[in-house]
Protein backbone atom coordinates (compact mmCIF):
# COMPACT_ATOMS: atom_id res chain seq x y z
CA UNK A 1 0.00 0.00 0.00
CA UNK A 2 1.40 3.38 -1.00
CA UNK A 3 1.46 6.16 1.62
CA UNK A 4 2.00 8.94 -0.96
CA UNK A 5 -0.71 11.60 -1.14
CA UNK A 6 -2.80 11.41 -4.31
CA UNK A 7 -1.90 13.88 -7.06
CA UNK A 8 -4.37 16.79 -7.09
CA UNK A 9 -6.71 17.02 -10.04
CA UNK A 10 -6.62 19.85 -12.58
CA UNK A 11 -9.58 21.55 -10.83
CA UNK A 12 -7.78 21.37 -7.49
CA UNK A 13 -4.71 22.99 -9.02
CA UNK A 14 -6.83 25.58 -10.81
CA UNK A 15 -8.52 26.55 -7.53
CA UNK A 16 -5.15 27.61 -6.11
CA UNK A 17 -4.02 29.83 -8.96
CA UNK A 18 -5.07 32.99 -7.10
CA UNK A 19 -2.88 32.03 -4.17
CA UNK A 20 0.01 31.53 -6.58
CA UNK A 21 -0.59 35.00 -8.02
CA UNK A 22 -0.73 36.42 -4.47
CA UNK A 23 2.44 34.55 -3.48
CA UNK A 24 0.78 33.07 -0.41
CA UNK A 25 1.28 29.35 -1.14
CA UNK A 26 3.65 27.28 1.00
CA UNK A 27 6.89 26.58 -0.99
CA UNK A 28 6.22 22.85 -1.62
CA UNK A 29 2.68 23.50 -2.86
CA UNK A 30 3.93 26.34 -5.04
CA UNK A 31 6.53 24.02 -6.64
CA UNK A 32 3.89 21.35 -7.31
CA UNK A 33 1.51 23.90 -8.84
CA UNK A 34 4.24 25.42 -11.01
CA UNK A 35 5.13 21.94 -12.27
CA UNK A 36 1.49 21.35 -13.17
CA UNK A 37 1.27 24.72 -14.96
CA UNK A 38 4.33 23.89 -17.08
CA UNK A 39 2.41 21.04 -18.63
CA UNK A 40 -1.07 22.62 -18.68
CA UNK A 41 -1.89 25.23 -21.31
CA UNK A 42 -5.25 26.11 -19.73
CA UNK A 43 -3.60 26.92 -16.41
CA UNK A 44 -0.86 28.90 -18.18
CA UNK A 45 -3.49 31.07 -19.82
CA UNK A 46 -5.56 31.33 -16.62
CA UNK A 47 -2.62 32.41 -14.51
CA UNK A 48 -1.50 35.01 -17.07
CA UNK A 49 -4.99 36.51 -17.23
CA UNK A 50 -5.39 36.38 -13.46
CA UNK A 51 -2.15 38.34 -13.07
CA UNK A 52 -3.45 40.99 -15.47
CA UNK A 53 -6.78 41.18 -13.63
CA UNK A 54 -5.17 41.53 -10.20
CA UNK A 55 -2.73 44.10 -11.53
CA UNK A 56 -5.58 46.16 -13.04
CA UNK A 57 -7.56 46.00 -9.77
CA UNK A 58 -4.57 47.09 -7.71
CA UNK A 59 -4.36 50.15 -9.97
CA UNK A 60 -7.66 51.42 -8.58
CA UNK A 61 -6.73 54.28 -6.30
CA UNK A 62 -8.30 55.10 -2.96
CA UNK A 63 -11.11 57.62 -3.45
CA UNK A 64 -10.93 60.49 -0.93
CA UNK A 65 -14.06 61.43 1.01
CA UNK A 66 -15.83 64.65 -0.02
CA UNK A 67 -14.53 67.89 1.51
CA UNK A 68 -17.38 68.60 3.95
CA UNK A 69 -17.70 65.00 4.99
CA UNK A 70 -16.64 65.45 8.66
CA UNK A 71 -19.07 68.30 9.22
CA UNK A 72 -21.89 66.43 7.54
CA UNK A 73 -21.37 63.46 9.83
CA UNK A 74 -21.38 65.76 12.89
CA UNK A 75 -24.52 67.50 11.62
CA UNK A 76 -26.27 64.18 11.05
CA UNK A 77 -25.45 63.04 14.60
CA UNK A 78 -26.64 66.38 16.02
CA UNK A 79 -29.95 66.10 14.14
CA UNK A 80 -30.55 62.51 15.19
CA UNK A 81 -29.56 63.07 18.80
CA UNK A 82 -31.77 66.20 18.87
CA UNK A 83 -28.80 68.36 19.72
CA UNK A 84 -27.46 66.16 22.53
CA UNK A 85 -24.21 65.61 20.63
CA UNK A 86 -22.35 67.96 18.32
CA UNK A 87 -24.74 70.79 19.23
CA UNK A 88 -23.92 74.48 18.87
CA UNK A 89 -20.93 75.09 21.10
CA UNK A 90 -21.03 77.66 23.90
CA UNK A 91 -18.60 80.59 24.03
CA UNK A 92 -16.66 78.82 26.76
CA UNK A 93 -16.05 75.87 24.41
CA UNK A 94 -14.73 78.01 21.60
CA UNK A 95 -12.65 80.63 23.56
CA UNK A 96 -10.08 79.59 26.17
CA UNK A 97 -11.03 80.33 29.76
CA UNK A 98 -7.85 82.37 30.36
CA UNK A 99 -8.76 84.73 27.53
CA UNK A 100 -12.29 85.11 28.85
CA UNK A 101 -10.95 85.88 32.38
CA UNK A 102 -8.52 88.49 31.04
CA UNK A 103 -11.27 90.11 29.01
CA UNK A 104 -13.54 90.24 32.06
CA UNK A 105 -10.75 91.86 34.13
CA UNK A 106 -10.07 94.52 31.48
CA UNK A 107 -13.77 95.30 31.16
CA UNK A 108 -14.12 95.52 34.97
CA UNK A 109 -11.20 97.95 35.26
CA UNK A 110 -12.52 100.07 32.39
CA UNK A 111 -15.90 100.30 34.11
CA UNK A 112 -14.27 101.23 37.43
CA UNK A 113 -12.24 104.11 35.92
CA UNK A 114 -15.19 105.29 33.91
CA UNK A 115 -17.38 105.52 36.99
CA UNK A 116 -14.60 107.11 39.03
CA UNK A 117 -14.09 109.86 36.48
CA UNK A 118 -17.77 110.49 36.04
CA UNK A 119 -19.47 113.56 37.69
CA UNK A 120 -22.39 111.47 38.74
CA UNK A 121 -20.42 108.36 39.56
CA UNK A 122 -21.08 106.95 42.98
CA UNK A 123 -17.45 105.90 43.45
CA UNK A 124 -16.10 109.50 43.35
CA UNK A 125 -14.95 110.71 46.84
CA UNK A 126 -16.88 113.71 48.27
CA UNK A 127 -13.88 116.11 48.54
CA UNK A 128 -15.53 119.57 48.07
CA UNK A 129 -18.13 121.55 50.06
CA UNK A 130 -21.15 122.29 47.97
CA UNK A 131 -21.18 125.96 46.89
CA UNK A 132 -23.77 128.29 48.50
CA UNK A 133 -26.06 129.99 46.04
CA UNK A 134 -24.87 133.54 45.14
CA UNK A 135 -26.98 136.57 46.36
CA UNK A 136 -26.86 139.57 44.08
CA UNK A 137 -27.33 143.11 45.55
CA UNK A 138 -29.24 144.37 42.62
CA UNK A 139 -31.56 141.49 42.53
CA UNK A 140 -35.19 142.61 42.39
CA UNK A 141 -37.11 142.40 45.65
CA UNK A 142 -39.36 139.56 45.10
CA UNK A 143 -41.02 139.81 48.51
CA UNK A 144 -44.22 141.83 48.19
CA UNK A 145 -44.55 144.88 50.48
CA UNK A 146 -47.11 144.51 53.14
Amino acid at each position, binding site marked *: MSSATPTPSHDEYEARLSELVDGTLPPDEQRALEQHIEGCETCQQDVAELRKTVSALSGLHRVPAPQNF*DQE*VADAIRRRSQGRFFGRRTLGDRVPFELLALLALVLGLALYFFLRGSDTGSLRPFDREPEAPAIHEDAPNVVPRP
Partner: protein
Amino acid sequence: MSLREGRLVRRLKDRDEKAFREMVEEYRDRVFSLTYRMLGNREEAEDLAQEVFITLFKSIDSFRGDSKFSTWLYRVTANHCKNRIKYLARRHDRDRAELTERVVGGGGATLADVRPAPRPDAQLEGAQMEQILQFAIAELDEEQRILVVLRDVEDLSYEEICAITELPDGTVKSRLHRARMALRKKLLKHM
Protein backbone atom coordinates in the same frame (compact mmCIF):
# COMPACT_ATOMS: atom_id res chain seq x y z
CA MET B 1 -5.03 46.80 19.56
CA SER B 2 -2.28 49.41 19.92
CA LEU B 3 -1.96 51.75 22.91
CA ARG B 4 -2.99 54.69 20.76
CA GLU B 5 -6.07 52.85 19.46
CA GLY B 6 -6.95 51.87 23.03
CA ARG B 7 -6.83 55.48 24.18
CA LEU B 8 -8.94 56.58 21.23
CA VAL B 9 -11.56 53.91 21.92
CA ARG B 10 -11.74 54.90 25.62
CA ARG B 11 -12.33 58.52 24.64
CA LEU B 12 -14.94 57.45 22.09
CA LYS B 13 -16.73 55.42 24.74
CA ASP B 14 -16.79 58.57 26.89
CA ARG B 15 -18.58 60.24 23.96
CA ASP B 16 -15.66 62.64 23.53
CA GLU B 17 -16.66 64.65 20.46
CA LYS B 18 -13.08 65.70 19.77
CA ALA B 19 -12.00 62.06 19.71
CA PHE B 20 -14.83 61.27 17.32
CA ARG B 21 -13.74 64.07 14.99
CA GLU B 22 -10.17 62.73 15.09
CA MET B 23 -11.43 59.23 14.27
CA VAL B 24 -13.53 60.48 11.33
CA GLU B 25 -10.55 62.42 9.99
CA GLU B 26 -8.30 59.37 10.23
CA TYR B 27 -10.64 56.80 8.70
CA ARG B 28 -13.00 58.76 6.40
CA ASP B 29 -11.05 58.05 3.20
CA ARG B 30 -10.78 54.33 3.91
CA VAL B 31 -14.49 54.06 4.70
CA PHE B 32 -15.59 56.24 1.78
CA SER B 33 -13.31 54.44 -0.66
CA LEU B 34 -14.69 51.07 0.41
CA THR B 35 -18.32 52.20 0.15
CA TYR B 36 -17.59 53.81 -3.24
CA ARG B 37 -15.90 50.72 -4.66
CA MET B 38 -18.70 48.53 -3.32
CA LEU B 39 -21.58 50.69 -4.55
CA GLY B 40 -20.04 52.42 -7.57
CA ASN B 41 -21.98 55.61 -6.95
CA ARG B 42 -20.64 58.69 -5.15
CA GLU B 43 -23.92 59.87 -3.60
CA GLU B 44 -24.85 56.44 -2.29
CA ALA B 45 -21.28 55.95 -1.08
CA GLU B 46 -21.26 59.24 0.80
CA ASP B 47 -24.61 58.58 2.39
CA LEU B 48 -23.54 55.11 3.43
CA ALA B 49 -20.17 56.27 4.75
CA GLN B 50 -22.01 58.76 6.95
CA GLU B 51 -24.25 55.94 8.21
CA VAL B 52 -21.15 53.92 9.06
CA PHE B 53 -19.74 56.70 11.25
CA ILE B 54 -23.12 57.29 12.91
CA THR B 55 -23.28 53.57 13.70
CA LEU B 56 -19.74 53.68 15.10
CA PHE B 57 -20.68 56.61 17.32
CA LYS B 58 -23.83 54.87 18.55
CA SER B 59 -22.41 51.40 19.04
CA ILE B 60 -18.85 52.04 20.18
CA ASP B 61 -19.76 50.42 23.52
CA SER B 62 -20.21 47.10 21.72
CA PHE B 63 -16.56 47.15 20.58
CA ARG B 64 -14.86 44.81 23.05
CA GLY B 65 -11.33 45.32 21.76
CA ASP B 66 -10.87 41.67 20.64
CA SER B 67 -9.67 42.89 17.26
CA LYS B 68 -7.97 45.98 15.92
CA PHE B 69 -10.26 49.00 15.82
CA SER B 70 -9.72 49.25 12.04
CA THR B 71 -10.88 45.62 11.64
CA TRP B 72 -14.09 46.39 13.52
CA LEU B 73 -14.57 49.55 11.45
CA TYR B 74 -14.09 47.61 8.20
CA ARG B 75 -16.55 44.95 9.45
CA VAL B 76 -19.21 47.56 10.21
CA THR B 77 -18.58 49.15 6.79
CA ALA B 78 -18.70 45.82 4.97
CA ASN B 79 -21.98 44.85 6.64
CA HIS B 80 -23.51 48.22 5.81
CA CYS B 81 -22.37 47.84 2.19
CA LYS B 82 -23.86 44.36 1.83
CA ASN B 83 -27.17 45.48 3.32
CA ARG B 84 -27.28 48.55 1.08
CA ILE B 85 -26.52 46.49 -2.03
CA LYS B 86 -29.40 44.14 -1.19
CA TYR B 87 -31.70 47.09 -0.53
CA LEU B 88 -30.70 48.80 -3.80
CA ALA B 89 -31.16 45.57 -5.74
CA ARG B 90 -34.68 45.18 -4.33
CA ARG B 91 -35.45 48.81 -5.13
CA HIS B 92 -33.97 48.44 -8.62
CA ASP B 93 -36.11 45.35 -9.28
CA ARG B 94 -39.21 47.17 -8.10
CA ASP B 95 -38.41 50.28 -10.18
CA ARG B 96 -37.59 48.14 -13.18
CA ALA B 97 -40.84 46.24 -12.87
CA GLU B 98 -42.73 49.53 -12.66
CA LEU B 99 -40.82 50.90 -15.66
CA THR B 100 -41.38 47.78 -17.73
CA GLU B 101 -45.08 48.19 -17.25
CA ARG B 102 -44.86 51.65 -18.83
CA VAL B 103 -42.01 51.35 -21.33
CA VAL B 104 -40.85 48.37 -23.35
CA GLY B 105 -37.04 47.90 -23.38
CA GLY B 106 -34.47 50.25 -21.76
CA GLY B 107 -32.40 49.34 -18.72
CA GLY B 108 -29.39 50.51 -16.75
CA ALA B 109 -25.83 50.78 -17.93
CA THR B 110 -23.78 47.59 -18.03
CA LEU B 111 -20.19 46.72 -18.75
CA ALA B 112 -21.09 46.28 -22.42
CA ASP B 113 -22.10 49.97 -22.56
CA VAL B 114 -18.58 51.16 -21.82
CA ARG B 115 -17.15 51.79 -25.25
CA PRO B 116 -13.51 52.51 -26.08
CA ALA B 117 -12.70 56.21 -26.41
CA PRO B 118 -11.97 57.35 -29.97
CA ARG B 119 -8.57 58.94 -29.14
CA PRO B 120 -7.25 57.42 -25.95
CA ASP B 121 -4.32 59.12 -24.27
CA ALA B 122 -2.81 57.68 -21.10
CA GLN B 123 -5.05 59.61 -18.70
CA LEU B 124 -8.24 58.92 -20.59
CA GLU B 125 -7.28 55.30 -20.89
CA GLY B 126 -6.73 55.16 -17.12
CA ALA B 127 -10.08 56.79 -16.37
CA GLN B 128 -11.83 54.49 -18.82
CA MET B 129 -10.16 51.42 -17.35
CA GLU B 130 -11.26 52.53 -13.89
CA GLN B 131 -14.83 52.81 -15.13
CA ILE B 132 -14.64 49.39 -16.74
CA LEU B 133 -13.29 47.86 -13.54
CA GLN B 134 -15.95 49.61 -11.47
CA PHE B 135 -18.70 48.21 -13.69
CA ALA B 136 -17.15 44.77 -13.58
CA ILE B 137 -16.94 44.83 -9.77
CA ALA B 138 -20.56 46.00 -9.59
CA GLU B 139 -21.65 42.92 -11.52
CA LEU B 140 -20.28 40.58 -8.84
CA ASP B 141 -22.53 39.50 -6.01
CA GLU B 142 -21.94 41.34 -2.75
CA GLU B 143 -20.12 38.44 -1.07
CA GLN B 144 -17.54 38.26 -3.87
CA ARG B 145 -17.39 42.03 -4.29
CA ILE B 146 -16.32 42.68 -0.70
CA LEU B 147 -13.46 40.18 -0.99
CA VAL B 148 -12.15 41.65 -4.24
CA VAL B 149 -12.29 45.19 -2.87
CA LEU B 150 -10.64 44.30 0.45
CA ARG B 151 -7.91 42.17 -1.10
CA ASP B 152 -7.14 43.72 -4.47
CA VAL B 153 -8.13 47.35 -3.99
CA GLU B 154 -7.52 47.92 -0.28
CA ASP B 155 -4.58 45.48 -0.29
CA LEU B 156 -5.49 43.81 3.01
CA SER B 157 -3.98 40.46 4.03
CA TYR B 158 -6.01 37.22 4.02
CA GLU B 159 -5.76 37.23 7.80
CA GLU B 160 -7.32 40.69 8.08
CA ILE B 161 -10.01 39.78 5.56
CA CYS B 162 -10.92 36.66 7.57
CA ALA B 163 -11.17 38.81 10.70
CA ILE B 164 -13.34 41.40 8.95
CA THR B 165 -15.68 38.98 7.20
CA GLU B 166 -15.61 36.35 9.98
CA LEU B 167 -15.21 33.69 7.27
CA PRO B 168 -12.79 30.74 7.39
CA ASP B 169 -9.53 31.09 5.46
CA GLY B 170 -10.49 28.44 2.89
CA THR B 171 -13.82 30.11 2.14
CA VAL B 172 -12.16 33.50 1.64
CA LYS B 173 -9.56 32.02 -0.72
CA SER B 174 -11.97 29.98 -2.82
CA ARG B 175 -14.57 32.75 -3.00
CA LEU B 176 -11.93 35.32 -3.94
CA HIS B 177 -10.58 33.02 -6.64
CA ARG B 178 -14.05 32.57 -8.15
CA ALA B 179 -14.58 36.34 -8.02
CA ARG B 180 -11.29 37.00 -9.81
CA MET B 181 -12.05 34.37 -12.45
CA ALA B 182 -15.44 36.00 -13.04
CA LEU B 183 -13.80 39.42 -13.30
CA ARG B 184 -11.18 38.03 -15.68
CA LYS B 185 -13.93 36.93 -18.06
CA LYS B 186 -15.64 40.32 -17.87
CA LEU B 187 -12.40 42.24 -18.39
CA LEU B 188 -10.85 40.00 -21.03
CA LYS B 189 -11.98 42.02 -24.03
CA HIS B 190 -10.80 45.27 -22.44
CA MET B 191 -7.30 44.16 -21.46
